[in-house]
């Protein structure tokens, strides 16, 4: 047993971190939130260049995967840097296309998803699609089947301004039947898994930014980070995240090994990562004070994301029920 990232995986994480740190992601997020997808699409292509999306695409479709451990590590970084766009949805579409009996749609879409040429999204049955207005293809689940939408309803605002939600409309079912049903279920698990990783990264960033803030913010003649009431809130936030992390990688190992318990492990990771990130957001807000409650201040981008991801692709209650479903 070696339950640690290896040197190559760690180097990949560092590469992504450096790329994203230099990309001024807050500006990209603000443009995306305003409906200007240009900078986001450019960043998306650069991310594809590192192989992030290829991690969810099999080699026969010009990918590298599926490699769940690497995906988890990559998505933690995407969350840390608040990258906008249908990230978990892309991973879900890849799982869906891998799982369909028909190789046609896989051949059509997967190579172009891996290369970053197309942006895709997926709406669960009767639900909203994330970033339908930005996507080149909006897959949606209808009755027993899968359809490619021809349009979408009005874009709704989210608690995370970077998440633009719209109901897909139109489109004939591409496929239906039990194979599609299974593939859809599988796709939702992968989306939940990717969302857990993104949440964890979001929470880690919130703690990092808050630690930096409380070290330089002075009141009563001293840095507020020296006060025990402040320290203990941050210690609690870190505790939640550090014990969510092994659940995420435990789910990754289960997915990689095709374990029958992978769905339950993903649910455990999703609820732990989501709750820990949300707790980190609350802590970040409280310890920043009024500046943290300000939209103009970049911390708000991460606070909104932690809040929205908590219920995306598996609410805490659904995940807890699944953990006990046996």
């Amino acid at each position, binding site marked *: *047993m*070696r*339950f*640690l*990232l*290896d040197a190559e*995986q760690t180097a990949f994480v560092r590469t992504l971190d450096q790329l994203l740190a230099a990309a001024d992601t807050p500006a990209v997020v603000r443009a995306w939130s305003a409906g200007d997808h240009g900078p986001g699409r450019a960043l998306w292509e650069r991310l594809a260049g590192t192989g992030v999306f290829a991690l969810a695409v099999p080699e026969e479709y010009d990918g590298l995967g599926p490699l769940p*451990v690497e995906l988890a590590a990559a998505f933690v970084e995407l969350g840390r840097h608040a990258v906008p766009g249908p990230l978990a949805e892309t991973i879900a579409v890849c799982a869906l296309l891998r799982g369909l009996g028909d190789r046609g749609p896989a051949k059509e879409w997967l190579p172009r998803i891996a290369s970053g040429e197309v942006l895709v999204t997926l709406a669960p049955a009767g639900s909203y699609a994330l970033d339908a207005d930005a996507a080149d293809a909006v897959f949606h689940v209808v009755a027993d089947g899968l359809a490619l939408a021809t349009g979408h309803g009005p874009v709704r605002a989210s608690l995370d301004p970077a998440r633009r939600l719209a109901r897909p409309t139109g489109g004939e079912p591409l496929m239906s039947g039990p194979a599609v049903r299974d593939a859809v279920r599988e796709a939702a698990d992968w989306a939940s898994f990717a969302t857990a990783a993104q949440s964890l990264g979001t929470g880690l960033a919130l*703690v990092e930014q808050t*630690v930096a803030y*409380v*070290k330089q913010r002075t009141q009563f003649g*001293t*840095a507020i*980070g*020296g*006060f*025990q009431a*402040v*320290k*203990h809130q*941050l*210690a*609690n936030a*870190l*505790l939640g995240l*550090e*014990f*969510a*992390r*092994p*659940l995420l*990688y*435990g789910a*990754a*190992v289960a997915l990689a090994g095709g374990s029958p318990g992978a769905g339950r*492990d993903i649910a*455990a990771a999703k*609820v*732990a990562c989501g709750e820990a990130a949300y707790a980190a957001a609350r802590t970040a807000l409280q310890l920043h004070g009024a500046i943290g409650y300000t939209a103009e201040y970049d911390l708000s981008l991460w606070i909104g994301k932690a809040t929205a991801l908590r219920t995306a692709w598996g609410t*805490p*209650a659904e*995940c*807890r*029920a699944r*953990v*006990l479903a046996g």
Partner: protein
Amino acid sequence: MDLDFTPGEDTFRAEARAWLAAHVPATALPSLETAEGFAAHRDWERELSGARWSVVSWPEEYGGRGASILRWLVFEEEYYAANAPGRVSQNGINLLAPTLFEHGTDEQRARILPAMASGATIWAQAWSEPEAGSDLASLRSTATRADGGWLLNGQKTWSSRAAFADRAFGLFRSDPAADRPHRGLTYLMFALDAPGVTVRPIGRLDGKPAFAELFLDDVFVPDEDIIGAPGQGWRVAMSTAGNERGLTLRSPGRFLAAADRLTALWRERADPHDTALRDRVADAVIGARAYRLFTFTNASRLAEGGDIGAESSLNKVFWSELDIRLHETALDLLGSDGELADGDDGGGWAEGYVFSLAGPIYAGTNEIQRDIIAERLLGLPKGRR
């Protein structure tokens, strides 16, 4: 990255499981915090050590199996899954032994460890004093030079297991003129029946004498019972404190087994519509899994020559708070039977609950641990406590 066990580890697990299935007492032993239960648990330690299961991670020469950390974790999972008795010798095995391995002499190891492994000598800890709790370095009990050894004077308190144990270990001020409080301390071992020692048992929350006050009046300790050099006690003791909080004190196996028992209780007792209670059971299951996987990360790091430093504080806060939440959930599932603290109808949950309440207090309070997390892992400035 993987979670695979080797065939050798699987065989080891199967061997432990088979032995435990054949030997774990069918009915629970009386509480180890009573005279009768203490004796029964001491007998159990002898039985365990007879089959070399009492200290699997120790070298064979001291009664162990030279098992890796991972095998020790496997043994612990099997041990608690088998519902085996609590370990009355844990203070010695988890706190004193690591110190002896790191700082003791060969003579001390040969003299002390085999008797610890067999339960022949059961150890109590003597850290806290009436005026030295979280601020342990302010302790006042003294060790003064005497012919061939030291004389101990003062008072220790909250000494776990001391009501029935044989010997104790702790820190004493040997150089009152040292420039800092944590300098001038010496790590010493002494017999609880030595002349000059008075043991006054203290009832814990449920009245059972789980700990004691120790009054020390010119208690002679020979030189052979100092660990490390005189004046180096703080450094010696801190290596033990890391062990206590880190991997060894409360293994994941304990919480995995408790979460399994809680899940069984929930399936048997719960109103399926009570989702609030269901969520708490799920959180206990998730917490136990998180702790197991977190520990595998640490074990992997240690196996590669890394060490666990301030991360052990994350560990200690997590398991101690998980333990309380898990037991509270069990008591709620038991409903009005939850308060029953004797007999078997409460499934031992009430006793486990009382035990769990001490977790955030001993081995360094969780407030101290959170300070360590904030200062050493997050890099926040040291402030007044």
